């Protein structure tokens, strides 16, 4: 590949005024950061600085212990004022960390903030070459030489502002979604909450009590659900799904499909007369198959909205065209079997994704025989069985014979911390819910024997260790360290024998239990996977939605204006989910309060004269930024929606006409960098050659 000469780059649309400006030699300042010993411990910063000082166009070169400190920044400002520096190169850490800091710094000194170039000599040099100090110093010098060459070609850019619609969309009506919606509503923003199920409440509504304090889950959640439904700023779209999202921060166009309930929400008063006469009984999903519901139903008594829904799959009318007993029973004429799905278009400024989790479903042919043995159940099923409003009224029974179990075993880490299954992570809640459920069982039936088979007990939260202590002290629950190897069923009594190595005893044990509870882990919900595709969100290796930065931007996503909360981001307990929901609400509120948001000018732009409208860039762009429009001189031309563009450069690299320019990554700038890099290699080659000749 031959690099075209820089003068051929005249196609860059710059005004003639700017061109005359750039004909004067640039005055570049180089600032080399020690970063304590992070860089200086490996790279010889003094040597690097002296070499940088001698580079063409460099008028001043300084080194600092911490360039990002007040002292370091003052030095940059001083150099700009005293030495008339007009372009700045900072050789320090990754631009992801401190580029905004230094942009503000040079702006303060009167320069355009985009006349800064950062050279990464920490992550990409000193940290990775800590064993080769000399070579690291050479590399740092090379990188700075390249940086200076690029900085010489930098052009001032202006950041732009886009308006922000002060409306938010919350996807998912679990505890995280409810909290985020309430917080935003209380701040005065219009909020739409979309939930796929007939009622909000999510997984928390299914739980019995919550650890470590033992609050009843629905008792603390239901008031929030009611508050949300009555909130003047919140519109609840239950039994609905987000179908399509277009647009960018501040200006999203959302299509929501409100599925037909076959009951008019405005007329239904939730009296339940219809369900009383409905002849169809099916398993209630909410009770995980232990309880039953009618074909016209509310999933649970505290449901919000308390509006009945007709289950199309099971309703007799949809099969035979007859029945309609419910219609006759309804005193408000609320039921309408001819209802159709409705598509609602919303315009929102920000989106919070709180699509939650699914519990791990044990494998059909797995070791723990969940599908084979009646008396092996999952923890979520146990939650329904011990729940006062559950199918048994809170009496724990064995599914095989309905009798109360006398010996109960919990098996931990089912579907988590398992590399074979691909769920490598710890689900964070299983240790504590098993301990909490053991406590509930012991409170109901004090003569029950309980054993918990565990690998490690992780009681890390506030009040968790105390609960772990109390369960051993008060209830004498037995903790067995070992992963069960085999479960077998006694065909007569239906009790389960667990074979496991009690690793702390160094003995293999075989013990009988009446009921075995699998403490299943959490995994990304189907809804999360779907919404990740709709919103083009990225996922972490574990499959949960990825945050923008694991420590410093825990509720943001890579897409501006879209935030995540709750278990959609990773396994969490209720306090963490609520905290994250509040954080997401406050992050989403910031641009909505300002009513405008600054968009980075580092975007792609199209030279209309060169564009032939082939549309290759439209296919390749991961953010949907380029679009085909009618050109000013006729013909199809590409236009880049700047608010959507992330400046990744995919379009510019692919354009066969070289019609697309990515600002601050123009061909001219990149070729200058390359030339500087090749110069270095050449001189090194020459050095080698001369050395070889001498020897």
């Amino acid at each position, binding site marked *: 590949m031959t690099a075209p000469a820089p003068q051929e780059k005249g196609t860059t649309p710059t005004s003639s005024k700017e061109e005359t400006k750039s004909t004067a030699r640039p005055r570049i300042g180089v600032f080399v950061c020690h970063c304590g010993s992070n860089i200086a411990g490996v790279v010889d910063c003094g040597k690097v600085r002296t070499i940088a000082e001698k580079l063409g166009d460099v008028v001043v070169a300084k080194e600092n212990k911490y360039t990002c400190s007040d002292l370091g920044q003052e030095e940059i400002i001083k150099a700009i004022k005293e030495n008339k520096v007009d372009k700045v190169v900072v050789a320090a850490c990754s631009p992801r960390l401190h580029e905004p800091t230094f942009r503000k710094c040079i702006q303060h000194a009167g320069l355009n903030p985009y006349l800064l170039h950062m050279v990464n000599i920490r992550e990409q040099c000193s940290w990775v070459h800590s064993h080769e100090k000399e070579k690291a110093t050479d590399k740092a010098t090379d990188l700075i030489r390249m940086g200076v060459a690029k900085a010489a070609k930098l052009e001032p850019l202006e950041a732009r502002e886009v308006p922000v619609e002060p409306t938010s969309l919350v996807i998912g009506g679990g505890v995280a979604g409810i909290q985020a919606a309430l917080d935003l509503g209380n701040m005065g923003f219009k909020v739409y909450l979309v939930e796929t199920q007939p009622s909000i409440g999510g997984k928390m509504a299914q739980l019995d009590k919550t650890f470590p304090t033992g609050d009843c889950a629905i008792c603390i959640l239901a008031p929030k659900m009611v508050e949300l439904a009555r909130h003047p700023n919140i519109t609840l779209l239950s039994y609905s799904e987000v179908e399509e999202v277009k647009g960018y921060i501040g200006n999203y166009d959302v299509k929501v499909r409100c599925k037909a309930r076959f009951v008019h929400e405005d007329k239904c008063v939730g009296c339940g007369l219809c369900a009383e006469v409905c002849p169809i009984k099916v398993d209630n999903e909410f009770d995980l198959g232990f309880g039953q519901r009618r074909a016209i139903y509310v999933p649970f008594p505290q449901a919000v909205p308390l509006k009945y829904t007709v289950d199309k799959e099971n309703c007799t009318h949809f099969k035979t065209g007859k029945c309609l007993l419910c219609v006759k029973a309804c005193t408000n004429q609320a039921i309408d079997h001819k209802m159709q799905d409705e598509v609602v278009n919303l315009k929102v400024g920000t989106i919070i994704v709180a699509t939650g989790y699914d519990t791990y479903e044990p494998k059909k042919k797995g070791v723990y025989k969940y599908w084979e043995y009646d008396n092996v159940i999952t923890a979520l099923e146990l939650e329904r069985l011990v729940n006062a409003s559950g199918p048994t009224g809170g009496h724990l029974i064995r599914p095989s014979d309905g009798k109360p179990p006398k010996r109960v075993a919990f098996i931990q880490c089912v579907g988590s911390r398992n*590399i074979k299954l691909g769920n490598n992570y710890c689900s964070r809640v299983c240790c504590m819910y098993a301990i909490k459920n053991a406590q509930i069982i012991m409170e109901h039936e004090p003569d029950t024997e309980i054993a918990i088979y565990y690998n490690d007990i992780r009681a890390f939260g506030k009040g968790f260790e105390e609960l772990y202590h109390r369960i051993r002290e008060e209830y004498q629950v037995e903790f067995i360290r*070992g992963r069960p*190897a*085999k479960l077998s069923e006694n065909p007569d009594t239906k009790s389960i024998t667990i074979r496991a*190595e009690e*690793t702390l005893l*160094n003995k293999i044990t075989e013990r009988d239990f009446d009921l075995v509870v699998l403490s299943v882990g959490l995994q990304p919900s189907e809804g999360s996977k779907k919404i990740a595709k709709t919103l083009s969100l990225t996922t972490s290796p574990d499959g949960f939605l990825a945050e923008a930065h694991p420590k410093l931007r825990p509720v943001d996503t890579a897409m501006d204006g879209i935030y995540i909360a709750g278990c959609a981001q990773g396994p969490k307990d209720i306090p963490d989910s609520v905290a994250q929901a509040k954080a997401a609400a406050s992050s989403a509120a910031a641009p909505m309060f300002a009513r405008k948001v600054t968009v980075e000018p580092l975007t792609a732009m199209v030279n209309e004269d060169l564009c032939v409208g082939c549309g290759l860039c439209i296919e390749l762009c991961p953010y949907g930024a380029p679009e085909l429009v009618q050109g000013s001189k006729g013909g199809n031309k590409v236009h880049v929606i700047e608010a959507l563009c992330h400046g990744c450069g995919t379009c510019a690299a692919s354009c066969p006409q070289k019609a697309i320019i990515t600002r601050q990554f123009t061909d001219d700038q990149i070729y200058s960098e390359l030339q500087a890099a090749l110069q270095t290699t050449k001189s090194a080659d020459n050095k080698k050659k001369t050395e070889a000749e001498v020897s």
Partner: protein
Amino acid sequence: MGEAEKTFIGGLHEELVEDKVIDEAQLDPDFAEQIRKYGGKDVMTCLQCGNCTGVCPISLRIDYKTRNIIKCCQFGLKKYTLGTQWVCATCYRCYEHCPADLNPAEVMIALRHIAIREGIIPPFIKTAATNLVKYGQSVKPDPEIDRVRKELGLEKIGTEHPEYHKVIREINVLVHATKYDKLIGIQDEVKA
């Protein structure tokens, strides 16, 4: 514990009970590294959940705990472990069930490599190796076996095959060339 078991296990259990306190002098800090060298790459990753012990078919018969041996390997308790690994049938059930996707059977094979090189060779290994160079198989040919095979409609084992002696010679050459004979201590049996 029966006599036969003792031969197999080498008394891991007894020695552990005898030593009340394990001092540092008994530990071999390079032991895990040595095991990794011979293919037991997963030895240090083990979480000690005990699933391998529970599923091991050998553990049904005798006092043999996969997890415990791995722990001794991690710890560097070389002298306890080098007699134990022969009992492993390398059925790989431990590998199949391990939640961390580790392979304990590979560690057992690595332990065999180390034990042989340290000269800890149980008599039955020598017998099997001698049979290999003499008859081309680790089990001695037996007229009784031939009779049963005939009853089952199976072929006779190939001792009367025209190529048989040629094959035995090749095995002998290979065993000698790879110094396997010297390693096991059966130089006198090999005709190369």
